[in-house]
């Protein structure tokens, strides 16, 4: 294999694939990136056995071929090369080495045979549909903060992506929960998604997909089977295994009869919660919301007797109520509601789940468990 490529063109796909490679690996081949050169294209593949990313980039191929080299090392080398330089990658036959040359810099890295490289991608997946980058972003951003990190409940360690009905309308839904809060976002079901399997997308895949979305404006091709999901972008394809488990029946925990309605401008609310929570303990981070007609009083106190209160003008006309929440969870939700838009809290009592929605977006809904205060 022998190719020549512009440093910047090589750096970008390398940055994507190296973030998939785990820093500590017991299996040597998993620390490597698979390089394949043919037909004027270099493709780079990295995997952690649960997900893989394949990136393609145009280059001048002097001699087609393939090899694998340590991903982080190659990334670091290319990153440190002079900007604007031409990089030449050469791996000759069975030499077991690949040389990297740019200007007056020379490197030689040990290679491992590509036959050892595990393959995830390649097969075709039965269900396929297209999402705009903006929609894909919404599905992830509105839910991922609620993903659980608890190992024992592995089935909560991802986003539950599935088809559902909202009234008569078929929708694509993403749901995540850690037991304390739940986030649900939905949008009209894209063409081709009907009959899709319900899947749980693992947290690491969600993070990597989110990074790839950030760099695209175009559409995203999504395809999936019962145990694999693929996101295809212009020049990168991510394939991930799915979490093998059953997501809980979340609809049962979304209350429908909550009638104490609070409307508050979200960014102002968030800043007030943040200020009051300063003195709340690291462990509980609780703040109390005391509501009377037209006024919300946020308060917090600490075991060593510090106290804080702040009053906020709100739309509230129901009976007075006091209810406590984890301040971080309140802010996570407020973060997802656009500046200037109002958050709508539907409450029942201090012990029952509260529903939060975004007044300007009827596709999202959050459920928040109160804390005893």
């Amino acid at each position: 294999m022998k190719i020549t490529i512009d440093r910047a063109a090589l750096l970008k796909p390398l940055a994507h694939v190296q973030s998939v490679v785990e820093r500590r690996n017991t299996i040597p081949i998993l620390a490597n990136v698979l390089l394949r050169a043919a037909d004027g294209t270099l493709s780079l593949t990295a995997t952690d056995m649960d997900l893989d990313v394949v990136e393609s980039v145009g280059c001048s191929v002097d001699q087609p071929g393939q090899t694998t080299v340590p991903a982080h090392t190659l990334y670091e080398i290319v990153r440190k090369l002079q900007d604007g330089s031409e990089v030449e990658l050469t791996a000759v036959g069975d030499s077991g080495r690949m040389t990297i040359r740019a200007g007056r810099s020379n490197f030689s890295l040990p290679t491992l045979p590509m036959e050892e490289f595990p393959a995830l991608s390649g097969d075709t997946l039965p269900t396929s549909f297209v999402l705009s980058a903006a929609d894909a972003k919404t599905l992830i951003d509105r839910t991922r903060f609620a993903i659980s990190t608890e190992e024992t409940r592995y089935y909560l360690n991802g986003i539950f992506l599935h088809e559902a009905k909202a009234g008569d309308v078929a929708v694509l839904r993403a749901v995540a929960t850690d037991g304390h809060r739940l986030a649900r976002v939905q949008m009209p079901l894209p063409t081709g998604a009907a009959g899709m399997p319900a899947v749980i997308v693992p947290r690491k895949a969600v993070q990597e997909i989110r990074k790839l979305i950030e760099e695209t404006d175009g559409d995203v091709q999504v395809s999936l089977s019962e145990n694999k999901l693929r996101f295809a972008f212009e020049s990168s394809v991510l394939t991930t295994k799915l979490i093998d488990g059953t997501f809980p029946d979340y609809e049962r925990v979304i209350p429908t009869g909550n009638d104490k309605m609070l409307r508050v401008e979200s960014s102002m609310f968030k800043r007030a919660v943040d200020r009051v929570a300063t003195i709340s303990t690291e462990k509980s981070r609780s703040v109390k919301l005391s509501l009377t007609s037209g006024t919300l009083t946020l308060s917090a106190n600490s075991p060593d007797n510090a106290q804080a209160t702040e009053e906020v003008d709100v739309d509230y006309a129901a009976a007075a109520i006091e209810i406590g929440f984890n301040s971080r969870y309140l802010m996570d939700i407020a973060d997802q509601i656009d500046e200037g838009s109002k958050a709508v809290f539907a409450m029942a009592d201090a012990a029952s789940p509260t529903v939060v929605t975004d007044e300007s977006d009827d596709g999202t809904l959050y459920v928040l468990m109160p804390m005893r205060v």
Partner: protein
Amino acid sequence: MTSQRTLCRDCFTWPPSTSAAPPERCPRCGSRRLVSHPELDRLSIAHIDCDAFYASVEKRDDPSLLDKPVIIGGGRRGVVSAACYVARIYGVRSAMPMFKALAACPHAVVIKPNMAKYAAAGAEVRALMRDVTPLVEPLSIDEAFLDLSGTDRLHGGAPAETLARLTGRIEEKVGVTASIGLSYNKFLAKVASDLDKPRGFFVIGANRIEQFLADRPVSMIWGVGKALYRTLLADGIRTVGDLQGLDERELMRRYGSIGQRLARFSHGQDSRAVEPGSVIKSVSSETTFNDDISATDALRPYLWRLSEEVSDRLKRKALCGWVVTLKLKTADFRSHSRQRRLSSPTQLADRIYRTADSLLEDAVDGRRFRLIGVGVTDLAGDRLADPRDLAEPGLERRHRVETAMDAVRAKLGKTAIMKGRGLRVDTLKQSPSSRLHPEDDTD
């Protein structure tokens, strides 16, 4: 030379010292229990330690045991939890394996620990301590530091007198004896209480403290365990005096942060305050089997009983914790512990058990175990305990079941109602030994 100050521990009077030599008997009541020290009326940091506490409680409840050697410990395979002073004459010590203790003292009366009873007596002792100062820092069920600074006027006497009256009240109301160590900091107070036992009162003053400490072994310094002791010996440091000759920075360079403590303690300096807040850091319970066990199914009933035990005590103390720890000791005495952090703190036996059980499944691999233990750490007040869970609606129902069972037991006794998973004859016979772990659990 400063003159001695003397206190009678029976009539709480201060006989005048006519010369440097203190009187042998109290001129007022004739008691020989006098304590004398030049700084006696000025020192205010105390360590109070009950004498052979578990054994003393048993002797209190059965006077026929008074002159017999009594060992508190569990089963053929257990260890000695406590030995009375009669048993100690035969060489029986705490934490000694039971078979060794019985070899040393074959006629000893062995009593299985009744933790509930000791905890009740310990709570009475602590309540009496708190009557004299809010600054009580418990170290375990039967010992605590007390800071009596500035209480002279309140109690109408120097701290030494207040302490003498306090141990008198502990004897009278709880029926056990305690020893007092009095000094000007925690380190020395703890050292002192160990130097005159049982029913003792030892005073360590600031005057010539370095001389006092110089000949003592470095192992007396809190924090010097077996490993560090060996290291110090290898470096030629055997006594506290050897440490006194070394610079604090040099000791820190050699031994890390403990080096600072070594340096300061060796000169009798300890700036730690008596902190009533740092009470309990973890709640745990463990049991040693009569015969080694390797099968998960056979371990589970023990695990459930221990989880219940830990849960009971968390509930009683209005606590809950974020981290569940499983401890196993193999037949060759290797300890293994695994822990898992929960999404919310718990005090429920059911959640403690389920979490420990998932750890157990990972740990069991055919090895034979001689001991199993469960603990909950990273504690918080029970206001945060076991909130409803959006992803697990069943949790709330299990929570209610457990609360209902607790209510039945409170009325009718512990065995009135039980879960099937705990019903195994051998686990019922064996009562687990359990402890509350304060910040620095001595003993």
